[in-house]
């Protein structure tokens, strides 16, 4: 082989792969937030954006500081977090239990799945007057509303997750003579865990959204009540401060679930 002869027709193979694989750029997310907020600040400062449309971000921030300094922040956060925790836990627990039952028993499935499907699209705010009668105006009705809202998506996610448990693993367990209880406890529940957790993600987002509806029911303190009051006074600074709180809460909760997932599902590839 003489290289001289060949150089004319030897060509490097062209690269044509790569791409279609997202790369993370953390700073961009931050930059977008900073940019949007600065734009809003500028626009509101020089009157380009009317004060009816958007509050000054700096005013929202001041409201925040005021809330924090007067101790009102805690006063509003505490009941809201309690409601979220109790209502969410209630809804999720019952939802998971019912979902597992639906997944395991054909009769329960046949009876409850259509019911859940019918309940799903009912907006909880439409039922507010009824909740007062059913559960009173105290915490019970707030818990019930949040629980009710988290219940349906949890059920749907859970029985889907149970259905998706690898049937081969179940046949394996049967072939080794494992008891029904063992199969449920050692195969079905852990196998459904990824689906259940990702369902919880959605359920908890819904729980936060329902917080506002729940606090329409005679709550004095709470982020939802704070937002509602701000809304009825058309006080945009406070309205946005409340909305930002909910948003932060949502991002935080989602991060918490992410952490739980990483820990509980560390066996996943």
């Amino acid at each position: 082989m003489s290289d001289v002869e060949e150089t004319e027709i030897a060509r490097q193979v062209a690269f044509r792969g790569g791409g279609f694989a997202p790369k993370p750029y953390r700073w961009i997310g931050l930059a977008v937030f900073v940019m949007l907020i600065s734009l809003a600040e500028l626009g509101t400062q020089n009157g380009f954006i009317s004060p009816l449309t958007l509050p000054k971000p700096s005013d929202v921030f001041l409201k925040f500081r005021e809330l924090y300094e007067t101790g009102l922040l805690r006063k509003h956060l505490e009941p809201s977090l309690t409601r979220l925790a109790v209502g969410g836990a209630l809804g999720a627990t019952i939802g998971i239990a019912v979902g597992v039952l639906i997944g395991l028993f054909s009769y329960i499935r046949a009876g409850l799945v259509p019911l859940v499907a019918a309940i799903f699209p009912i907006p909880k705010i439409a039922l507010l007057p009824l909740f007062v009668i059913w559960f009173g105006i105290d915490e019970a009705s707030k818990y019930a509303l949040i629980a009710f809202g988290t219940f349906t998506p949890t059920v749907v996610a859970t029985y889907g997750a149970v259905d998706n448990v690898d049937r081969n693993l179940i046949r394996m367990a049967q072939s080794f003579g494992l008891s029904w209880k063992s199969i449920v406890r050692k195969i079905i529940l852990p196998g459904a865990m990824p689906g259940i957790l990702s369902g919880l993600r959605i359920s908890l987002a819904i729980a936060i959204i329902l917080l506002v509806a729940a606090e329409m029911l005679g709550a004095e303190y709470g982020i939802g009540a704070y937002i509602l009051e701000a809304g009825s006074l058309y006080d945009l600074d406070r309205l946005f401060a409340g909305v930002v709180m909910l948003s932060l809460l949502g991002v935080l909760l989602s991060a918490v679930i992410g952490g739980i997932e990483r820990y509980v599902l560390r066996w996943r590839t």
Partner: protein
Amino acid sequence: SQNRKITVGALRFTSHSGSFIAFERGYFSDAGLDVELKFFQAAQPMAVAIASGSIDYAVTAVSGGLISLAQKGAVKVIGGALTEEPGIDGQKIIASDVAFKAGVTSPKMLDGKVFGMSTAGSSFHYMGSKIASAEGVSLKFKPLQKVGAIIGALKSGQIDAWSIVPHIAKPLARSGAAHIIGNVSDYLPNYQITTVFTSARNAAEEKAMTRNFLSGFSKGVADYNATMIERTGGEDGVSEMVRLIHKYVYANRPLEKAAPSIINGTMRLNEGAALNVTSIQDQLKWFQSEALVDADITMDTLVDSSYVKTIHA
């Protein structure tokens, strides 16, 4: 000492001052009641809460919901709280800036205009309707559910008019977003705006407790009227009263900022919780004519007039 425990529902409005004063000055305890105040964001859930027995007494406007609950045998109106009185600053009819500039300077000009209200069957609906028929104009009613949404729609000129209590109307007018074009009292003299009500069970079976409540409440009302309207205590009396009310109304604003709003909101409360039955009758009839409530509901279903003085005017 052996006080009976009851729960009283309230909104954080000056018109509920009767309860606040009676509570703060111990008039309820004097009447043998151990009162717990429960606050609501809106009147509707309060009515439902009375029906469900969660609270015992409350003050609210006569709305379609209240009548409907009365029909179901759940609530009864037992007294009056707030009345429009010619000569005393009452609810205002306001027009949006846009509409005002387009010539809506008095309620006469409202023909074909859009009137804001929270829901069908609310007191806004009733007032607007009455104004329209008195002026012989026709109004379009826009249900916006929340007071905040109505204010937003008014400020941006999407609705033309609204009627609202003075402490909201006046700041709006001052900011230039709206203009006061009339008084509700011109159209609805002696309009019984809000009433004291309780569950039908309390009205029928707990007569002593109900009477005790009304007597405590009335003392609060008397104090309020004396201080804020007759000014018997002078400016000092007013500012002391404002400080008391500020505990409940605009509590999250500093006193200096809240005081004008509280004073602006002053309206006469019904002395002795007297009830204007004629006005109530008129309201009931209106709701029935609009097919918002069943036509066969009678005054007896709605009102228990055995507790307070009734006014027929």
